[in-house]
């Protein structure tokens, strides 16, 4: 039973005080006199009376459901358990939502800290991260007590980031793009918690997006002069976007391009005639029959002239008209034996022959190529043939004879130890035996010089770099360059590091001197000699001389590899001990023995290649390469092309770009190419 100890002048006084404090009467208490008062002597030593008063029984709780009754009841309980007087402040809310025993506890409701006091037991709160807690005006960072007398404030940091946006037009003023980084507002609030004796205060955050205003966007568009092609849905999307992005808010209309004037042939053009062989699964080659050359009678419409068609202008976002690209009229050159009808729309042949249309830059040329048909063999009796047109030989071309034609050459028989030069195409129905063939611009010499030129191109570049590097070395003096030029240094390089280059230069020179009358080779050969084979007065005095030589090499190599011409091709059944140069594709219906071949296009071989050296600029496709016990067969392509072989015997040498591999055993399904790291792959 709780008791109270009170003092007074007299026991009665002490008792009265106690009863008043307990708000009760004598009947409900036990009384203990602990000390009687004493008067002392002469006013000194006077002592007060001390009385202990103890409540007899707990008071009776009154019945009733109204809050007044509950209040009273709660008050009584409080009276029973503690002596604190009720003080307004952190009042308890009488609503029934709060559950559980509340005395001596603290709780958070709707973001407010509340508590109910009891004596000798103080609930505690600890502010956690992001909670800036003030108790009675003072910031508290550690755990602290909570009483109804205390006033608590929690401060929150509010983060606000406005949206960032930017409107820009592209160069052509065809689109207006809105770049947007949406904004947001981050607010915190104190989390509600149920009653406890020690609460850890924590916060929750709410992120609300901040959007841009459509009117602001429209105003900016106006400021930029945008008045056409505004895409309102995109603007709306941007004004509601939660994630950063780009929005095309205005789009112009691109102009519709027209077409230039052109010639529409009514015969199969050279380009259409180019056919690629098919590769069967077993690796063998199958090429469809190459069609014959087109041929027309006189008085036939061979082509139509299509006039240019203007395009339609577009509109940019600022409302300006965007003109289409200009269209050009056709530049037409009428060649031999053709005529343009008066209305300018049709071209007619005036003689029988092969129609030929080709394009160079912006010029189109159309003509009928005259044809010479030679009824028998070309031999000593008939004499050599030179013709500015097509030649068809119904027999063979015999030993030592020469046939030269600007157009195409067709031979029904063989070519035996003879020379054939065709400007455009060569079709030999049978075989080439020990002959020299050249089709297109360039020549057989080109076939031999091209690989060397390729190597020179590469090595000269390396040589340049080596000279520059050595010049920069710390211990190297460039003092003698003035007196003696670069040659002393190059001489040392040609002895050691660039020994191979010197060998190639000798080889190159030999081939040129042995016989070619082509100016570009002769000039280049002379330049090489002057630079490297002339110790006394080499042309290489400064680095720029070496640069110049390298440039010339590059240019020559480039022009050899990319001769401009309409489609050139060469076709035959079989070649033995021959030299074949063709600027374009080469189709071989059987195969070759021991032949040197250069193709500026694709080399397709139905059956085999045995012995010899074969280069094709665009790739090689062959069913079988090499022979048991035979000599080497070398196949070469540039770095960006591939070699496909159905079955390759050992002693086959494969070169792709600079990578060379010799097969040491029979290999099937070879697909030689360089992978992305430049490594030569064979399968």
């Amino acid at each position, binding site marked *: 039973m709780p008791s109270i100890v009170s003092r007074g002048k007299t026991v009665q006084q002490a008792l009265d005080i106690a009863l008043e404090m307990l708000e009760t009467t004598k009947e409900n208490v036990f009384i203990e006199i602990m000390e009687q008062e004493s008067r002392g002597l002469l006013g000194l030593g006077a002592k007060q009376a001390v009385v202990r008063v103890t409540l007899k029984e707990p008071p009776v709780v009154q019945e009733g459901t109204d809050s007044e009754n509950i209040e009273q009841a709660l008050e009584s309980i409080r009276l029973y358990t503690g002596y604190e007087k009720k003080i307004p402040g952190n009042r308890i809310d009488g609503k029934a939502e709060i559950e559980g025993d509340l005395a001596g506890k603290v709780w958070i409701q709707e973001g407010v800290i509340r508590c109910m006091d009891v004596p000798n037991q103080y609930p505690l709160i600890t502010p956690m991260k992001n909670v800036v807690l003030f108790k009675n005006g003072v910031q508290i960072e550690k755990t602290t007590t909570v009483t109804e007398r205390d006033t608590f404030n929690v401060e929150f940091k509010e983060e606000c980031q406005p949206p960032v946006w930017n409107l820009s037009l592209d160069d052509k003023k065809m689109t207006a793009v809105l770049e947007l980084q949406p904004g947001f507002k981050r607010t915190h609030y104190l989390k509600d918690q149920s009653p406890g004796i020690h609460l850890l205060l924590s916060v929750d955050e709410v992120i609300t997006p901040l959007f841009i205003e459509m009117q602001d966007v429209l105003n900016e568009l106006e400021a930029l002069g945008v008045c056409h092609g505004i895409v309102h849905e995109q603007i709306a999307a941007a004004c509601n976007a939660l994630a950063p992005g780009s929005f095309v808010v205005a789009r112009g209309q691109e102009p519709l391009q027209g077409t230039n004037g052109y010639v529409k042939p009514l015969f199969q053009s050279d380009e259409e005639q180019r056919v690629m062989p098919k590769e069967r699964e077993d690796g063998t080659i199958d090429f469809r029959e190459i069609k014959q050359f087109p041929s027309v009678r006189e008085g036939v419409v061979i082509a139509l002239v299509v006039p240019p068609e203007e395009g339609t202008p577009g509109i940019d976002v600022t409302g300006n008209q965007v003109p289409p690209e200009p269209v050009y009229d056709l530049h037409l050159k009428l060649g031999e034996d053709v005529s343009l009808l008066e209305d300018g729309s049709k071209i007619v042949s005036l003689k029988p022959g092969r129609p030929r249309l080709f394009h160079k830059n912006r010029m189109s040329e159309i003509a009928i190529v005259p044809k010479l048909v030679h009824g028998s063999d070309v031999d000593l009796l008939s004499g050599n043939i030179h013709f500015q047109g097509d030649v068809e030989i119904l027999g063979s071309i015999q030993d030592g004879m020469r046939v030269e034609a600007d157009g195409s050459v067709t031979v029904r028989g063989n070519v035996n130890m003879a020379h054939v030069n065709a400007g455009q195409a060569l079709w030999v129905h049978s075989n080439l035996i020990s002959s020299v063939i050249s089709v297109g611009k360039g020549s057989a010499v080109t076939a031999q010089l091209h690989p060397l030129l390729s190597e020179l191109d590469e090595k000269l570049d390396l040589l340049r770099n080596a000279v520059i590097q050595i010049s920069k*070395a*710390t211990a190297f003096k460039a003092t003698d360059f003035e007196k003696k030029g670069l040659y002393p240094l190059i001489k040392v390089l040609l002895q050691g590091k660039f020994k191979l280059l010197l060998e190639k230069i000798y080889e190159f020179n030999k081939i040129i001197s042995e016989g070619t009358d082509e100016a570009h080779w002769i000039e280049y050969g002379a330049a090489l000699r002057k630079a490297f084979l002339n110790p006394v007065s080499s042309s290489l005095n400064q680095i720029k001389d070496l640069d110049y030589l390298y440039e010339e090499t590059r240019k020559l190599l480039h022009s050899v590899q990319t001769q401009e011409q309409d489609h050139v091709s060469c076709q035959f059944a079989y070649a033995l001990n021959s030299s074949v140069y063709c600027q374009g594709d080469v189709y071989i219906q059987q195969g070759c023995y021991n032949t040197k071949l250069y193709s500026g296009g694709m080399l397709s071989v139905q059956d085999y290649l045995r012995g010899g050296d074969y280069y094709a600029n665009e790739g090689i496709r062959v069913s079988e390469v090499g022979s048991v016990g035979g000599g080497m067969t070398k196949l070469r392509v540039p770095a960006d092309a591939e070699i496909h072989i159905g079955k390759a015997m050992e002693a086959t040498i494969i070169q792709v770009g600079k990578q060379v591999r010799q097969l040491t055993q029979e290999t099937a399904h070879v697909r030689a190419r360089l992978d992305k790291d430049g490594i030569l792959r064979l399968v």
Partner: protein
Amino acid sequence: MFRYKLSADSDHSMLSIEGDIDIDGTELIEDEITPALMQYSSVTIDMGEVMFVDSSGIGLLIKMIETLKEEGKTIKMKFIRPEVNEVFEMLQIQDIIGNEVFDN
């Protein structure tokens, strides 16, 4: 330009070069040193005091070593400074005059 010291005991000679091996040393190498070295069966070239070379100098050096080797002499080069060795390596001198000249 460079200075040199030639010392020998019976068959073996030691050639110490001090300075730059360059075009100015042409007569020195061709007319004085090469003939002088002919009388010995082996020579060690001390390159410790050689700082700079030019292309003519390198050419002269190579020619001298090749000439001596043709006569059956054994040549060794020692104490080559790293900067000079850098130039030798860029030119792949060892492929021209032989690896054994550099073996120590």
